[in-house]
C-alpha cells in the first residue's frame, strides 16, 4: 500500500488530528508512516494542513505532492490542493463549507455535508470525523475496526467519553 494524503482546512477543525489518526492507525498496523504539518504563522493565523503517508516501504520524501487523497475542509484548501491530487485520486470535501468548482476530469470528487450533519447530530466539532469516516469507507485504506482500536490510543485518558463520540461520528460519516 502507498497512500498519500493532504488534509487541509481552518485551524480548529481538527485537521492535524485526523492526520494523526491516520498515521497512528498505520503505525499500529505495522505500516511505515509520516505526518508532516504546516507550521508557523500559517498555523496560528487560520489555515492548517498536514501531509500523511502510509506505506509498505520506507518513506522517502515526507512531502506529498501527488496525493492519492486530498481532504479539504474549506474553500481555499479545495482550490489550493485540487492540482495536488494524483490522476485517479480523490478530492474529498466538506460540502457544507465548500462550494466546489471542479476543474479536473481525471480525479474523483466526493462531497460530504460534514459540518451540517455533525451539527445536526449535536457533534458540530466532530465534522472532521464525519469526513474521515467517509474517506475510510471510500478509500479502503483501513477497516473501521482498526481505526477504532487506534483511536483508543489517541483519546486523552482523562476524557474517555471522547472515544465514543468520535467513534459515533466516524461511523455516521462512513454510512453516508
Amino acid at each position, binding site marked *: 500500500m502507498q497512500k498519500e494524503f493532504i488534509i487541509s482546512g481552518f485551524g480548529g477543525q481538527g485537521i492535524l488530528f485526523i492526520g*494523526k489518526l491516520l*498515521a*497512528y492507525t498505520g*503505525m499500529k498496523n505495522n505500516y*511505515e*508512516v*509520516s*505526518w*508532516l*504539518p504546516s*507550521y*508557523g*504563522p500559517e498555523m496560528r493565523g487560520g489555515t492548517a494542513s498536514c501531509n500523511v503517508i502510509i506505506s509498505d516501504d520506507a*518513506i*522517502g*520524501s*515526507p*512531502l506529498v*505532492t501527488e496525493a492519492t487523497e486530498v481532504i479539504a475542509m474549506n474553500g481555499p484548501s479545495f482550490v489550493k490542493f485540487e492540482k495536488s491530487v494524483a490522476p485517479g485520486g480523490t478530492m474529498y470535501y466538506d460540502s457544507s463549507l465548500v462550494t466546489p468548482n471542479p476543474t479536473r476530469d481525471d480525479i474523483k470528487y466526493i462531497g460530504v455535508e460534514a459540518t451540517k450533519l455533525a451539527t445536526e447530530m449535536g457533534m458540530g466539532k466532530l465534522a472532521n470525523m464525519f469526513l474521515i469516516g467517509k474517506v475510510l469507507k471510500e478509500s479502503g485504506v483501513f477497516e473501521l475496526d482498526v481505526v477504532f482500536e487506534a483511536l483508543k490510543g489517541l483519546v486523552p485518558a482523562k476524557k474517555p467519553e471522547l472515544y465514543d463520540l468520535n467513534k459515533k461520528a466516524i461511523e455516521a460519516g462512513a454510512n453516508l
Partner: protein
Amino acid sequence: MSEKVLMKGNEAIAEAAIRSGCKLFFGYPITPQTEVSAYMSKRMPQVDGLYLQAESEVAAINMVYGAAATGARAMTSSSSPGISLKQEGLSYIAGADLPCVIINIVRGGPGLGGIQPAQSDYFQATKGGGHGDYNLVVLAPSTIQECVDLTYKAFDIADQYRVPVMIMGDGMLGQMMEPVSFPAHDDSVTFDKSWACNTTGMKRKKNIVNSLYINPDELENLVWERQKRYDLITEKETRAESFFCEDADIVLVAYGTIARVAMNAVKKARAMGIKAGLIRPITLWPFPEQEIANVAKTAKSFLSVEMSTGQMVYDVKLAVNGKCPVEFYGRTGGVVPVPQEILDKIVEMSKKL
C-alpha cells in the same frame, strides 16, 4: 527495544536526550524548534532534571558551558538566528574542551530569514562558526528514528572526545511525526570526568576550565593537541550511507530530509534506466570524504542536492578531487525541492554522459 510511538522530531530528540542522561537543558523559544523546550519543560521535572528558559540564546549556551564544566550532561537547542547568537559560547566550549550537545533545527536565512526548512547553515556548522581553530561534530539525521539514535550517539561522542556535538536537522524534521522506538540506553560506558569543576571537597587539587592561554606556544600546543583528537574523530566517527552506488553513473550527495527526497528521485531515475545512486552523509563534520572518493573512482558525475545556494558541494568537490564533474541543485529560503525537479536535473545530466 521499546514499543513504537508517533513523535515529532523535536520531541524525539528531547526524549532521547533525557534517556542519554542529559540532566540540564537551557532553552530559548524560536520556531521551528520550540517543541524541544516545551517537551523538556514538561519532562525534566519528572526525571529530577532541570529545564531553564534563559534570557537569551547567548545566556543559554553559557549556562550549558557552566553545567558542562561540572561534568554534567547538558544541552541547548535553537534554530538558525539563535544558533548565530550561540557561536560565542560554542567557541569557548570548544576552547575549554567541554562536552555538550547543541540542537540546530535550521530555517531559512540570512537575517531573520524565514521559518521554513533550510540547510543554509552548513558552512556555519561544519566550518567552525565561531572564532578560532575548532570544529563541532555535526550529525545530520534524516528520519525521526535517526534523531533518537544520533542523540544517544551525540552525548557519547561529546564525552568521549570532550567536544561539543551539534545535531543539525531542518524545520521539516523537527515538525514531522514518524514512529520511533527508544532502544535501551547503554549506561555502562563511563567517561573520564576528572577535569570537572564540581568542587574539590579539599580532597584534590583544584580544576580550572578555561580557554585563555596568553603564551602563544602554550596555546599552539593545545590547539594541535585538539587537532589530533579531531583526526581521531575523523578516523573513528565518520558515517555515511550509500545506495545503488556500485554501478552508478550519476551519484547524488544529500543529507537530512533532503536525502529522502533525493532517494525518491534516484528510484524514479533507475526506473527510467538511468544508473543513479545516492550517498547520504550522516556526519557532516567529519565529512565522509573517503566514501565519496571511493565512489568517484567509478562514477561519471556527482550532484550535490541541498536546501541552500550550494555549501556542501564544496566538500563534495574536495572529496571527488577532480575525478569527475560535480554539479549542484538547490532550493533555498525555506523551499523544499520535490523529487521531480531533482529527477529533471538527473535526466539533464544523463544526457551529457
